[in-house]
């Protein structure tokens, strides 16, 4: 289970850039890095470290995790039997020995509960959906509903850690990190992936979405999500501080590029080049 053997981000970068450097191509601009990345979009497998060894089919992944939504039984998971069994004791064959949370363990009876509103087949695919989601029903043929999902975790924290990282015990990379690690990116100027959270108004958020859920676990931290918060300043530290105008900032950045270039000439370390590009 050791992925770390295969990856060493900065070393890979060195290797990749050394190669270009040695082949006589001048570095030191954004163009260079987009050239590198352009390889990734070409149809051939180029075997350059850090990029996938196969062509990625997916161009983008949008993943929405809606913490605290209505239950699958009420929305998509149709069963004829559940209506008949409504109000009766949950059969052992259904529960199958599934353990109970500290909250439900005290209940005297575990009763079957039918959906709160009727289900209908929607679209040509005949996907079952609750009448409560009429608009989702209108696009039934454009979405896939997976009803076979299963969790061993029975509490909020382990449950949402499991669905986002594959393990209820913290320490594993999140879905976004795997997508970034496995598929790479065609754009080196952007973060590996971004995370939008809808909380953050200071009101009681119920079950919060914490940083572990978009963390990179044991993958290099370049694969961690960059949090975009709600409100006027979504990205941390993006705005120029008060008193610095764009033209001043531009001048500072130009100076910085020149100063770093001076240093690059002394050390020829490609990591300096990366910083210049930023």
């Amino acid at each position: 289970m050791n992925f770390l053997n295969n990856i060493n981000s900065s070393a890979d970068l060195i290797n990749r850039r050394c190669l270009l450097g040695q082949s006589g191509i001048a570095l030191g601009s954004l163009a260079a890095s987009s050239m590198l990345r352009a390889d990734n979009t070409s149809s051939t497998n180029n075997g350059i470290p850090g990029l996938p060894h196969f062509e990625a089919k997916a161009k983008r992944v949008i993943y929405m995790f809606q913490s605290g939504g209505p239950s699958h039984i009420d929305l998509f998971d149709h069963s004829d039997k559940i209506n008949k069994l409504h109000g009766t004791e949950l059969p052992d064959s259904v529960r199958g020995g599934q353990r109970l949370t500290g909250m439900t363990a005290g209940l005297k009876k575990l009763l079957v509960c039918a959906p709160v509103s009727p289900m209908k087949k929607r679209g040509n695919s005949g996907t079952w959906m609750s009448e409560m989601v009429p608009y989702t029903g209108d696009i039934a043929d454009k979405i896939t509903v997976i009803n076979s999902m299963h969790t061993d975790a029975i509490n909020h924290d382990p449950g949402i850690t499991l669905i986002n990282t594959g393990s209820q015990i913290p320490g594993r990379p999140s879905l976004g990190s795997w997508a970034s690690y496995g598929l790479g990116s065609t754009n080196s100027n952007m973060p590996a992936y971004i995370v939008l959270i809808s909380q953050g108004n200071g009101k009681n958020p119920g079950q919060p979405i914490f940083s572990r859920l978009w963390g990179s676990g044991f993958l290099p931290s370049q694969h961690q999500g960059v949090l975009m918060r709600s409100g006027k300043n979504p990205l941390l530290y993006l705005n120029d501080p008060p008193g610095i105008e764009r033209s001043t900032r531009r001048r500072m950045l130009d100076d910085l590029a020149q100063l770093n270039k001076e240093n690059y000439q002394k050390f020829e370390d490609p990591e300096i080049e990366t910083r210049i590009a930023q």
Partner: protein
Amino acid sequence: MMIHRLIIFVVLVCNLQCYAKKIQFNQSIKPILSNNCFSCHGPDEKEIKGGLQLHLRETATSVLEKSGERAISPGDREESSLWHRINSTDPDDQMPPPESNHKLTREEIDLIGQWIDEGAEYQRHWSFEPIEPIEGTIDELIESKLKEAGLNPSPKASKDILIRRLYLDLTGLPPSQVAIETFAKDNSSDAYEKLVDQLINSKTFAERLAVNWLDAARYADTNGYSIDDHRDMWIWRDWVVSAFLENKPYDQFALEQIAGDLIPKSSTQQKVATGFLRNSMNTHEGGTIPEEYRVTYTADKVDTVSTVFMGLTMKCAQCHDHKYDPITQKEYYQFFAFFNTSSEPGSGAINANTAPLIEAESNLCSIERVKRDANNRINELRQKRVTPEIHLTNLRNQWEKKTLDSLSKQRPNSKNKKNSLIIDNSVKWIWSTKEGDSAYAKFRRAFNLEKAPKSASMWFTCDNECKILINGNHIASLDDWTKPKTIEINNLKKGKNTIEVEANNVAGSKAGLILSLQVLDSSNETISIVTNSEWKSQTQKNNQSEWKEAFEIANYGDSPWGAIYQTGESKSFDENLFSALNTPTKKRNTTHWNKINDSFSAVSGAFKIYINQLNLEEKAIKKTAETGKSTVMVMNYKPRKTHILIRGAYDQHGEEVSTGIPSALPPVKSEPGQTLTRLDLAKWLINPKHPLTSRVIVNRYWQMIFGTGLVKTAEDFGAQGEYPSHPVLLDRLAKDFVASGWDLQKLIKRIVMSETYQQESKLRKSSSSKDPYNRLLSRSPRFRLDAEFVRDSALFASGLLDLEIGGPSVYPYQPKGLWADVSHYGYPSGFTSQKYLPGSGQSNYRRSMYTVWKRTSPPPSMTIFDAPNRETCVVRRLQTNTPMQALVLQNDPQFLEAAASLGNIMSAESSIMEGINIGFMRTLGRTAQENELRILSSSFKEYIKTFENKPENAVSLIRAGQSYNPKIKDPKTVAAWTLVASTLLNMDEFVTRQ
């Protein structure tokens, strides 16, 4: 494209030539087999396919039952079925099978062929072999490898580079100008060694070593799971720093952290050391099954101890036998059993440390100092009541104005005294039982009116329903407790009056009655009757039970009913509130503020939550402020049976096991029938003959200094880990380290005294093509500083850094709302550490290792620079170089303030050139070169012009932090210097050790 491929080909061929002289199993063959074959043909007995196990020579070379062939026939590849299978292209025959997604390269296949022809000799896994005595210095062993690869070492680096490198590596801070000048002038032959000795004996060195240990020990200030409220483990953190400070031998350091509590007559500090094991995350989320989590905490201890001390991924054997390393699932649980004997519960304490715990002093700072820090924090929190966050201050200001206006109008004088109602937290929710849980309650309140009433009104509500009788007349009922009623009362009389309430509750929910009655009598005096414990109650209908005092369940405004059921402003005239509001802000005392905040809390949910958070945080640190001590979680011994957990599931008990050591490792000495304890385990780990303990730690210090370990996978010395780049050197260092009495200072001194360490870091084309990762060290590596040291260096360079050591964690600047975004902030009962409450003064300038660490939202300027989140053990930080890092350096207020402070220092110089030079000295440890001077001085002049046009920009810029001095005479000059300083702090060279 063609060019790239061509070069890759060249590099590969070269690498093969460098490493493929003589086929060694451990170095060349085992990694191939482990990566591609062991998952079906390895140590895990349950997964063996075709009866073949390739990890042992005996099984790999014996005749297979099924085919009658040998997988490996030593000396003859043609007779080996493995050879044919790995060369096959028939999907049915081919190995590894296509569906495995593993594929051997041509080079790997040929290596295996050659190895079989050479006799297919196996070696025991290298890291489990004893460490044999070896000759050679660091430099000799490095150089011999370089020679093999046709490389030369680089020349020695210049003095200015060396002193900066030493300071950054050993203290995490750049050198001061004085230190640089002293070292430059010192021409004695041992100048360098003197400097090394001085640094190794400094407090900053101890702190620097502690940072890595805190990652390994997953140290944090919060509990981690779910609610992630606070814990107090800083006493343990101080123990770690003090251990490095006194150069505690590493064997003792390990022993105390694993089993300090079991050492006979152990001291308090030895018990504190076991906090190492208790740094595991814990939870108290409702619904938790305690046993499941108790097992998780124990497994985390196994993972941490095996990774930190042995570089073993033992956690892989929690659910099944290890796929690559010789650790069975049974052996995992034997190891687990060492840690499964503590009274630590599965469900943790709320807003506090979880037992077992002890109260202890810091090993690093005095009781007075801790008291002072804790009291400062309490004062900070109290100040936040006076000046809360800006949006709450604005809300409160609006409310203050409105309320004062309305109170001024209402203010009674003898002419217009009116009746009004009191609805504030002096009115209580009451019930007949303490928990508010009985189904029925009856209340009675008798009172006397000395004068005839002129008018009276009453406000009330009841959860869930009630009927009210005054003087025997049924005057009102209420069945929706969310809609309180206000009614006029006409049947009161001079003399004795009685209110009676009959109330019903819904089974299972909390009940309460709240009522406020005001009577204006004939002499314009107000008489108030409110629900409180002066009321009588009983639980039975028909007056069968005894009348007892009613219970006060909650204040008006408190949970579970909250302030949302307010009926608007209190109609009564509140003299205290009026006088508090009428006092000018600067003259208000604590009583005034408490009155104002209480009143505003009753009508503002957001403000109430905020005040509640302040109360909780103050409560959490109060004891420390009084005693100068803190509790700390520690280990204890409580016998408990351990079972193999089938598939790792906490409730699937298999065979019972007792404590034991994996058989692939050296046995532990024990008497027959003796049960081994954690203390035995610790003693076994620090036995000088243990093959892993010394190798693993020596490798980590090599990694700390050179960026990459001799074994790159510092966390994994098993089959899936990397074979050492310099196995002989690793063993040499490990052997000498143990012989020195596990002396860390000596080890580190030896490494930095080497010529290998003192080389230049300039990349040379000749060596970078042969050794692109610089694993052979033909130059000194160049790498970015760890997150903590980036911030510390900026603070140091700008003269802001406070070098105070140890103590409770501090709360420096952080963007607003980060904690509240991801926490249970606002949850009715309230938890600690749900909202970041920034500190003031020196807490902004302490070393980064003292910044409070919330696991679900660690400090962003740390994680952006690749600090781990401290949820699980990490012994190797990975380094990235991202645009987010540039944004921190440019725009984080902490770095801006540093720039402003450095700018101020630079502005004091007599010329632009000297200003730039002092900036260079403080940040980069050298003077500026001509080009650099030209670039920056021309920009400086430009900046001055810009600020002359817009002087207001200059002030906004240099006002970045608390250290801003409003008396600065010439803001535009300081602002221009601030921009130059910010440019310096953003340079690659500033954040790099080179």
